[in-house]
């Protein structure tokens, strides 16, 4: 029994976002690609348990997340590479986002507890509903909402974004002034 080409294409179509999720979890492109590969192997070996017509991305993300979690427990002693390799995977960044600002954001995101980070990524970047994100993480919808809210609040703190004004053209100037004040 060969794999239904339509199912196969659904799997392939999910790979790019699966990689993006894997990188945001592991912070490391090599581990991320291993994780995606392992996910695909496992998914295709158990493709019979996927119900056609249901959410393929959510199914694959669930597998990947579970793999990451079990691997993470095993490798707990390894230090997560939050600063190094991730940047190397990014070939460009949008024009509206300055390099420094982009780095600040990435570093701040890496400082979030992993459960908050994954919730934020799933809902805010992958485009999953809160329900789907809860299913992927195996927790209640309310838990996802609370993690997302805490993640955003913490991010705003880390980025020292207090309000709208901080996004104005004066932000850099004020950052210099704030940095200069030694009291």
């Amino acid at each position, binding site marked *: 029994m060969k794999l239904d080409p339509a199912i196969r294409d659904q799997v392939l179509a999910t790979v790019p*976002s699966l990689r993006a999720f894997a990188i945001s979890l592991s912070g490391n492109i090599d581990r991320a690609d291993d994780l995606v590969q392992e996910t695909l192997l496992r998914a295709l070996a158990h493709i019979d348990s996927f119900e056609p017509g249901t959410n393929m991305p959510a199914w694959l993300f669930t597998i990947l997340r579970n793999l990451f979690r079990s691997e993470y427990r095993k490798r707990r002693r390894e230090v997560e590479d939050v600063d190094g390799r991730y940047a190397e995977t990014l070939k460009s960044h949008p024009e509206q986002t300055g390099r420094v600002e982009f780095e600040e954001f990435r570093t701040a995101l890496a400082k979030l507890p992993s459960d908050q980070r994954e919730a934020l990524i799933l809902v805010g970047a992958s485009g999953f509903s809160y329900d789907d994100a809860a299913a992927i993480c195996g927790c209640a919808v309310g838990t996802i909402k609370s993690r997302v809210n805490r993640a955003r609040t913490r991010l*705003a703190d880390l980025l020292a974004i207090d309000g709208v004004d901080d996004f104005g053209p004066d932000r850099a100037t004020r950052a210099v002034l704030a940095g200069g004040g030694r009291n």
Partner: protein
Amino acid sequence: MGEGGQDDDMKQRKTNLEPVEPVAEKPQSQEPMGRTSTPQKPEARLGREVQARIGQQLRAMYNDVVSQGVPPHLADLVRRLGEQDAEQ
């Protein structure tokens, strides 16, 4: 087959972030009449602009990877496994 729809769906998805609760829609000074002021932690009030900015950066970072597409070795893997018997 219509599998293209799936692809489009993933690419065109936008954030599903709901407003941080409770959202400060209006400046703090405008406390509605007759409504008891409930104490809120300052950090619970993120403005819309801040939320939008965080969401924007998040997606920019994520989509950077998404736009790299499917690495050839992973595409090969899926095609190869797809040709095999599922029980193998």
